[in-house]
């Protein structure tokens, strides 16, 4: 199908989310602020859960809240990401497929992104992600050449910088928000911090 672009901001937050909860499966939603049609530009993400990914109520709640927030901020939900607790297994779980399916109902070029924990280490040269798209009624691996990470070197160094200053602790996912509702699951402060690190050359993130 079409191309998928992953911004530094979205990538960094997904990575931080997985790093914040290394012993849990984590998931989240991929958002785009670009209009529909053409390439899928993933410009941001919302980290959702790190506990009980397969239980319905909180997932439903989170999806509804993110929907409302997207309407307010002119964004669309264009995909779903998940990192499994068991690092050696990066295949989509039934719950990942279910949620991706729901997103596909509203967005016909939705993507399902699995984070490959085995490839997450300092100095890793390859993006630790596996992307799936909807093809012929099932979720199939997307051709690696249609997945773009702009300014990969810079993105890598930004993520390393954030990790070494322990910034994964700043990330708030929906689960953490429910533990303390004064915490902001839209991560405005962290977003601003990351965007400051991104050079203008990285373009429209």
């Amino acid at each position, binding site marked *: 199908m079409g191309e998928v672009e992953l911004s530094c901001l979205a990538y960094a937050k997904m990575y931080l989310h997985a790093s914040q909860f290394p012993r849990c499966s984590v998931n989240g939603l991929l958002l785009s602020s670009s209009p529909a049609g053409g390439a899928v530009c993933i410009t941001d993400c919302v980290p959702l859960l790190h506990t009980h990914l397969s*239980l*319905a109520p909180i997932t*439903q*709640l989170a999806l509804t*809240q993110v929907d*409302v*927030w997207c309407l*307010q901020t002119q964004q669309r939900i264009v995909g779903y990401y998940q990192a499994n607790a068991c690092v050696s297994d990066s295949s989509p779980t039934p719950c990942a497929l279910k949620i991706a399916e729901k997103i596909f109902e509203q967005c016909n070029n939705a993507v399902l992104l699995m984070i490959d924990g085995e490839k997450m280490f300092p100095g890793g040269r390859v993006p630790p992600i596996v992307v799936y798209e909807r093809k012929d009624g099932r979720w199939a691996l997307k051709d690696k050449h249609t997945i773009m990470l702009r300014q990969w070197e810079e993105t890598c160094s930004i993520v390393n910088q954030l990790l070494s200053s322990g910034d994964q602790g700043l990330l708030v996912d929906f689960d953490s928000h429910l533990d303390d509702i004064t915490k902001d699951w*839209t991560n405005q402060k962290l977003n601003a911090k990351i965007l400051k690190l991104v050079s203008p050359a990285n373009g429209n993130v």
Partner: protein
Amino acid sequence: MSSISELYDVTWEEMRDKLRKWREENYRNSEQIVDVGEELINEHASKLGDDIWIIYEQVMIAALDCSRDDLAWSCLQELKRQFPDSHRVKRLAGMRLEALERYEDANKLYDSILQDDPTNTAARKRKISILRAQGKSSEAIRELNEYLEQFVGDQEAWHELSELYINEHDYAKAAFCLEELMMTNPHNHLYCEQYGEVKYTQGGLENLELARKYFAQALKLNNRNMRALFGLYMSASHVAASPKVSAKVKKDNVKYAAWAASQISRAYQMAGRGKKENKCSVKAVEEMLESMQITMS
């Protein structure tokens, strides 16, 4: 690099007390434990008295969590020297092997403990953890069930089993485990709330009504449990919207949902006071509550 005591202006006694607190409350803040514990061991070992052994154990486990095999190894050596035939220390050696993914060697070690002492629950549980780490969920579930037949009162095991069942989408069995936990821990709001979530996930009118009751119970035990509050709102809304319920049941559930909605709004208003970035979530929640009401009616 400055030390912890310099950075945070704490005395060695305060560091020792912090470690005790983390130990007693079972925190898994491993990076902090390594930072504080390593300094305590290196700089103040002589002052710690007999406490040092349990601190070595605590720091060793935290070190394994942070891939600090150097630190884990030195703690283990101290413990081996002091307690040469201890099963407890042997188990720690096993955990180190697990951290190095040498599962066969770890299993051999645990098996030798169990040969000596078949009632050693720690070794049995480590074997089950290995199965989990290897992704062998069905075997882990089977072993855990066998374990619980013998050690029926082990809360940690019941909770671990409920988590395994939830991951496998076996909600009925997860509910059974949570029922055991609620029976022995009737004041624990988290178990009630988790039970509500499982019932909600199972779906169907009966399960939704049950979910609502358990969310309500969780709130009685802790009125700040936001998951229970949202759960109550959602389950009551669904019941009220069901065509199968009587007018009275519908009316009651509309009332419950309305109450929950007002509590949620209030909580968010209070949380959002004075914080600019929270205005987004306050608005998002208000709109969400509105949109859910529209779909419900």
